[in-house]
């Protein structure tokens, strides 16, 4: 960590998650999916960090590994001064109170056989919080905070619209008074007119409860709206990490530039010069040599397929991994 910085709430160093590919009768490991391949991040209190990238870039896996919902292959995750990377079982339990998650699909992430009251009670039961009469009060409080009413508690998930279900998912994440919430594509499954409601709700709750967020998303406009700092991922690595203003007004990495220029703007007057990338994202099973982006990069140089560029600070905490800098 650099000197003079506020201490990070979450500090992730060189995180790697490799999934083995098993084949045959004896499940021999024949290769690995390099889903997350050396990610370093810090999240400060009250901050919102965006993790963006296209499908298969490892952003969701990184989010899950940071929350210790999957076991990282290597690297360290330090939460509030404690290393949590190697913790297991009961050791992790107190951590679960502090680190919560909001899921993408509001349909499959709520148990259809439980009422909203039961869904919200469950985490409190597990952690032995708000017993007796305090429970009902707490649930009413949570429902009200997410824009629902206490009467909704007796209903089942199928009785709600997508936006309302996402509110229930948010209430569940809030139930244990967490410090950090990871939102995995929290609005992408919702109707366009509902997204603003949920984004504004997330902003309001952050202010009220002093929450820190990690928002995993592919929609760059959404991420810009709610994040302070944004890390762009490509094939398991961070290619650029900057404050939102720097990233959007002065993108450095060719991939970030292409990504930003590919977003259609809802304003026909703004005709953009578009940088269209060739080809698709390569498979994370056999990532390209050197810089993973070099086969699609319009500025590739001779060095790019031989060496892997490190993430370098190019001024003001704007980090890029590209040999151009």
């Amino acid at each position, binding site marked *: 960590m650099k000197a003079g910085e506020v201490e990070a709430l979450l500090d992730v160093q060189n995180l790697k998650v490799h999934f083995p590919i098993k084949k045959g009768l004896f499940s021999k490991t024949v290769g690995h999916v390099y889903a997350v391949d050396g990610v370093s991040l810090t999240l400060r209190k009250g901050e919102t960090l965006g993790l963006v990238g296209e499908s298969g870039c490892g952003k969701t896996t990184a989010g899950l590994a940071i929350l210790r919902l999957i076991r990282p292959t290597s690297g360290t995750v330090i939460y509030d001064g404690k290393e949590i990377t190697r913790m297991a079982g009961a050791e992790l339990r107190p951590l679960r109170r502090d680190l919560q998650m909001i899921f993408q699909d509001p349909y499959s992430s709520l148990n259809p056989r439980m009422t909203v009251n039961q869904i919200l009670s469950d985490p409190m039961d597990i952690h032995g919080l708000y017993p007796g009469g305090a429970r009902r009060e707490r649930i009413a409080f949570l429902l009200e905070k997410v824009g629902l009413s206490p009467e909704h508690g007796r209903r089942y998930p199928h009785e709600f619209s997508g936006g309302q279900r996402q509110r229930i998912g948010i209430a569940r994440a809030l139930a244990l008074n967490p410090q950090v919430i990871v939102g995995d594509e929290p609005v992408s499954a919702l109707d*366009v*007119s509902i997204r603003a*409601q949920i984004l504004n709700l997330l902003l309001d709750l952050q202010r009220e409860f002093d929450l820190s967020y990690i928002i995993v998303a592919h929609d760059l406009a959404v991420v810009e709206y709610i994040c302070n700092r944004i890390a762009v991922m490509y094939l398991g690595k961070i290619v650029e990490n900057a404050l*939102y203003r720097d990233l959007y007004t002065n993108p450095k990495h060719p991939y970030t530039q292409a990504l930003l220029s590919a977003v259609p703007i*809802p304003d026909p007057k703004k005709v953009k010069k578009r940088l269209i*990338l060739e080809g698709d994202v390569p498979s994370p099973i056999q990532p390209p040599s050197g810089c993973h982006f070099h086969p699609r990069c319009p500025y590739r140089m001779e060095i790019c397929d031989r060496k892997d560029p490190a993430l370098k600070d190019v001024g003001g905490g704007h980090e890029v991994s590209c040999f151009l800098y």
Partner: protein
Amino acid sequence: MSSGPYLLEVQALKTYFYTFYGVARAVDDVSLQLAPGEVLGLVGESGCGKSVTAQSILRLIPEPPGRIVHGRILFDGHDILAIPMDEMRSIRGKRISMIFQEPMSSLNPVYTIGDQIGEMFSLHRGSSKRESLDRAVDMLRKVQIPAPERRVHEYPHQLSGGMRQRAMIAMALACNPEILIADEPTTALDVTVQAQILNLMMQLRRDYETAIILITHDLGVIAETATRVVVMYAGKVAEEASTPVIFEDPKHPYTVGLLRSIPKLGERSQGQETRLSEIPGMVPGLLDLPNGCTFHPRCPEVMGICREQMPDLFGVGQGRLVRCWLYGR
């Protein structure tokens, strides 16, 4: 607008679904016109009827529970709702074709890409097997799939999402259709691949003068591709205008709200620290539509009449139509 030589005219279309719980009026009195070479954007949220409108044009509505209960669809001067099904089959794919949102589930997994594109030629043009395969390779090359000679023998699962969508486009354009209906063609794709596919569609439109009906919920995609926009809400047309006009000066409170509620790339970074405005409430269910104007419970400008009576589509000049009591009576 004077009744010009339209390629396709949908007149007062009503497509209803008769379900156990009641009648869902998925498309309720929708009229559209499509001129040759035009890109008509059909925008709306889930359940607004945009996909059902497209499926009605190709008569792909599953019957039962669905049924086209009213309206005419004039294509080349004929009402294609009235022609026999086997005649419809010779239009489908050949003169009007469609691409779907999910390329994996709309390609047949047990046939090669070449078989599936080649079928278009053998079915509609009577080409031999050899000839069909050669032309399939040509089509794959046109949609910029690398190594088309090899890819033509592959199965859908061997292609990436972007390539599958290209293969679908190749199939849809194989017979040089006059109309291409694209239902959320890029929603399942990543942004960089979306840019490639949209670019390709616009290029093919220039080369073959295919008219396109583009169905999407993404206003950004509409702004960049469509020439005219129809905004749908709960089975009805809420507003229709040319693309620059609708983004510059939206009239219907729903369109206004929609445009204000989406985060725009670069806006916050350039110092406009504004809070997104929300459209309150939720998209109504088709079985449980509000009385009067179906948007009134969410409308910031709601008046007494809105709660009682559905407004007509009022003309407000320059071919613009708005279904709102603010603009006529």
